[in-house]
């Protein structure tokens, strides 16, 4: 109950903050799932102390004065349009939330451990993440996800409250992605949606508190908002992505770069989310280095080119892991190769850029990340991060095929 209350309060605050910052109708922003990320990014800025607060205020002023971003009005599906899908969305939400409120896999414990820090006081997670004497595991990671879990659970130090808060956040990332793509996917056949959602590893991650699926869902939401010209939400989502995990920056760069490259009229303003994410990630890295903290998993050096064939082999084996993915990646690849529709081209290019950036990070990263990849603890999770974009690509193509096959 605590987490539901926390989520409602944060969503209310986010909706009002978004309305104030973007001059949008507050009734619309309160109905938009993406609004909660405005509240979370504001809290994140406050938790980073004076510098974060100053940057947060600058972001608010920048959005309100429209100095750097131009944005389309918030487009929220009317209740009449949502009603046919509402029972299915509710069923999906119940399936995701109906889990024992106990972590069951490795990283769940690690993420929720950092969420416990918020029970010691607001902003403790960020403060201790920059304090080498706290010996946080893993060190140097941006602290937004666990801090957000702590805020949604209202700082209560209880395992059920933290797991339910994290699960609600996972659900909000799904809702944010669905909202961003609703205008393009609303006439997608239901049986195709069910078939895509049947991907087995999706259910493992949707019913966990891992951050890989949320990262992918927010990245695909970012792409939807950039394509729609709703750059205020895009900037906020880009900042959230850079605060969740280091891979978040790769997602932002790949997504924004892809839209910019396929766009018939390239505008520098479209790059604003990427600039914001780079500044945020660089700021976090600088603060961590200043505090003597290094993220040992993500330090870079000269590329180990001779490992490239191994990476290709491992990626092929993971994408062919039938128990985890079925034939999803084969179909996504076929769709990517065939489709010429503009949204699909952006998704395809985004996936390709993301693959390139992640491949470069693995080649240039420390030996331990290649050991993780070899021992099977890394690549399926990267694929989980890319799954939402690939899933939207398959859904878009399926919708187009269904429309083409329909009797006129």
């Amino acid at each position, binding site marked *: 109950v605590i987490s539901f209350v926390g989520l409602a309060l944060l969503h209310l605050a986010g909706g009002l903050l978004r309305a104030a910052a973007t001059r949008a109708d507050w009734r619309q922003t309160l109905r938009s799932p993406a609004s909660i990320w405005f509240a979370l990014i504001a809290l994140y800025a406050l938790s980073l102390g004076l510098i974060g607060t100053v940057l947060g205020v600058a972001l608010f002023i920048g959005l309100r004065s429209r100095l750097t971003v131009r944005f389309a009005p918030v487009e929220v599906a009317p209740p009449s349009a949502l009603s046919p899908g509402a029972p299915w969305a509710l069923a999906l939400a119940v399936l995701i939330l109906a889990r024992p409120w106990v972590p069951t896999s490795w990283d769940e414990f690690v993420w929720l451990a950092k969420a416990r820090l918020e029970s010691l006081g607001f902003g403790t997670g960020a403060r201790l993440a920059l304090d080498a004497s706290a010996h946080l595991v893993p060190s140097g990671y941006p602290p937004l996800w666990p801090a957000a879990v702590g805020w949604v659970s209202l700082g209560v130090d209880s395992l059920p409250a933290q797991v339910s808060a994290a699960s609600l956040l996972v659900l909000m990332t799904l809702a944010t992605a669905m909202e961003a793509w609703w205008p393009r996917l609303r006439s997608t056949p239901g049986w195709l949606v069910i078939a895509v959602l049947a991907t087995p590893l999706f259910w493992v991650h949707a019913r966990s508190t891992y951050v890989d699926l949320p990262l992918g869902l927010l990245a695909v939401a970012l792409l939807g908002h950039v394509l729609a010209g709703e750059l205020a939400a895009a900037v906020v989502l880009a900042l959230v992505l850079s605060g969740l995990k280091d891979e978040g920056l790769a997602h932002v760069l790949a997504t924004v770069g892809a839209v910019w490259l396929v766009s018939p009229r390239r505008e520098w303003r479209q790059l604003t989310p990427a600039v914001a994410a780079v500044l945020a990630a660089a700021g976090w890295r600088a603060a961590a280095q200043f505090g003597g903290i290094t993220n040992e998993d993500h330090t870079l050096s000269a590329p180990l080119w001779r490992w490239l064939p191994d990476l290709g082999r491992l990626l092929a084996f993971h994408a062919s892991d039938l128990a985890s993915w079925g034939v999803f990646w084969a179909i996504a690849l076929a769709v990517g190769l065939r489709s010429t529709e503009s949204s699909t081209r952006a998704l395809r290019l985004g996936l390709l850029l993301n693959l390139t950036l992640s491949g470069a990070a693995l080649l240039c990263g420390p030996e331990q990340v290649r050991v993780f990849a070899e021992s099977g603890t890394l690549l399926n999770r990267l694929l989980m991060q890319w799954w939402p974009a690939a899933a939207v690509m398959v859904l878009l193509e*399926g919708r187009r095929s269904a429309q083409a096959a329909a009797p006129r």
Partner: protein
Amino acid sequence: MGDEVGTLESTESVIIDGANGVTRAPRQHFPDAGWSVGVVLVTLALTLALKSQRRRLVPVLLLLSAGPGLLQVLVKRADAPTRRAAMAAQISATVSELQARSGWPLPVAVVRDDDDVLYPLGVYAMPTRAAPDAGVRSIELRGTRVTVTCRGNAPIVCGDAP
């Protein structure tokens, strides 16, 4: 850990590999890689060859191929819906034991950690660690089983006996 080949049947195996794949195939270096890559290549060729009107076959392929994995997720794994409550009870008991004995947020030093299944539970119970020092409570996390009790005081030993 007593698992049948491939299946994440025990609580310990789910804690370690539960999110890395639906089965232990990634950890076991994909023993059936030849077969799976073959299936994927055939599907790729078939999907590329399908005419627009026949693409309604795509969801059928997706659903059929998801079947074995969903069977693992829904029935066989230790975190399957029918078995998850038992797993949760097991984990809750150990986490409570570690939390009670470690006394966090009071300073606590982990002086030994076998880097196995107790490691993440220990991280949850003790998110911050102190340097081993006189007057600081110290704790050892030993072994490869999730169900443990703790004993002793200096250090507190949780898991297998030294």
